[in-house]
């Protein structure tokens, strides 16, 4: 298993930095000024009630949604700077494309491409975007599928896989682009309980291999075990953050306590 991480000594240690971002949908203010940093190799779990803006926050990072105000930096490099829904600092289009490829994303509903078989799902983006050599990337894709335990299903169509298997393919698919940061939006929420374990195991392995990960999840047990840091979001703001022990076992804020009481 090889996730390419730069071994450069002076490499910037802050992988993601978000400064004072806000996001409006029409008149609805969904993100109300968010700041945080994620260090290289750090696993950050974001928890919080439904509708608190967790998905929106992740989607703003890879520009599936555009922020209204604020700044986003990837490895210290400005990726997005906006004010009142207008881009202030225009990033070179090719560079922006590159930065977006540094962020892999896994969705709640997997979103595999149903018209492509498993290995094609994994290789289509590297072939299309990175112009990767088909033979080489297929070999690499099979390695990734092996890592998620699905090498023997490489030539089947997604519809024949269980939800848990589809989600592991989705992880392999994101990894095939060699991202530096992986974003997970409730990756196990759509799964039957007995299928959750395999997906979490894959994510844990990824964390052990040093991948920088931002994970929105309701799996408190997983967060407690794997996260380096837990962020509790409520109503568009970061309400509390700290180590899993601080946030989950000894929450300071009343809102955190009442949320945890509800879901534990």
């Amino acid at each position, binding site marked *: 298993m090889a996730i390419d991480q730069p071994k450069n000594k002076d490499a910037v240690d802050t992988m993601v930095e978000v400064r004072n971002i806000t996001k409006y949908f029409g008149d609805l203010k969904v993100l109300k000024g968010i700041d945080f940093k994620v260090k290289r190799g750090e696993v950050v779990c974001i928890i919080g009630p439904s509708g608190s803006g967790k998905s929106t926050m992740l989607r703003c990072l*890879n520009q*599936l949604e555009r922020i209204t105000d604020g700044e986003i930096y990837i490895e210290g490099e400005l990726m997005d700077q906006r004010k009142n829904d207008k881009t202030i600092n225009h990033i070179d289009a090719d560079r922006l*494309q590159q930065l*977006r*490829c540094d*962020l*892999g*994303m896994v*969705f709640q*509903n997997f*979103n*595999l*491409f*149903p*018209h492509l*078989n498993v290995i094609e799902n994994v290789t*289509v*983006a590297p072939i*299309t*975007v*990175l112009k990767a050599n088909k033979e080489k990337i297929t070999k690499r894709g099979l390695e990734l599928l092996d890592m998620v335990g699905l090498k023997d299903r490489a030539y089947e*169509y997604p*519809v*024949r896989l269980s939800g848990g298997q589809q989600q592991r393919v*989705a992880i392999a*698919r*994101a990894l095939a*682009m060699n991202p530096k940061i992986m974003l997970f939006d409730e990756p196990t929420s759509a799964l039957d309980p007995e299928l959750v374990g395999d997906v979490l195991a894959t994510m844990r392995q990824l964390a052990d291999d040093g991948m920088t990960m931002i994970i929105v999840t309701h799996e408190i047990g997983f967060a407690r075990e794997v996260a380096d840091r837990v962020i509790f979001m409520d109503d568009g703001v970061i309400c509390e953050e700290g180590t899993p022990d601080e946030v989950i076992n000894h929450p300071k804020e009343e809102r955190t306590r009442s949320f945890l009481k509800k879901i534990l």
Partner: protein
Amino acid sequence: MLTSTQGWAIFHGSILTVEIALVAVFFGVILGIIVALGRISKNKIANALSWFYVWFFRGTPLLLQLFMVYFAVPIIYLNVTGSTLVIDPMLCAFVTFSLNSTAYMAEIIRAAIESIPEGQMEAAKALGMSYHQAMRKIIIPQTFKRLVAPLGNELIMLLKDTSLVSTIALFDVLRTVKTMASSTGNWVYYLYAAAIYLFLTTVLQVIFDKLEKRFGAYEKR
């Protein structure tokens, strides 16, 4: 019974019918994709142009469109340039039927594209694909299955609508048998035409049913 001259005439008429339908469907699909992309585009001009196109060609009779191309265009040409323009009726049929079917295809293709779940475009974008790449590799290929049935319907409608070309000096299968029927006073010729239309539409139906099964493969459990 048919003389061999009559047989050949009917055969040629049928070929002409099929030719117009196939040409119209071919250009209809290609241009229809472009108009459909215009319809869903965020670009206001592309959007307005393609809206207008569909509005015009679906909102006026095909026969009128045929007359406009065949009769009106030469008159306009004469008024503007002072010289006469002779339009080959076959070319005129190709152009008119293609333009008309483009409008219908565009709506079929647009509906198919819009029926693909949004998560597909998002997943493609999250993997670094541009809108263009995502459309080409992810979205449009997924519409094929959903396009097969409406495309078959459209082709069958077109095939029958080609009978309108008898008004612009073309001998399609219907006009051919009508001429025979009125010169001999025998109605049986109409049955030949009916049999040919039925044969052609049935063949199309069978082909499209097969295609639908084939494209459906990846959605079967």
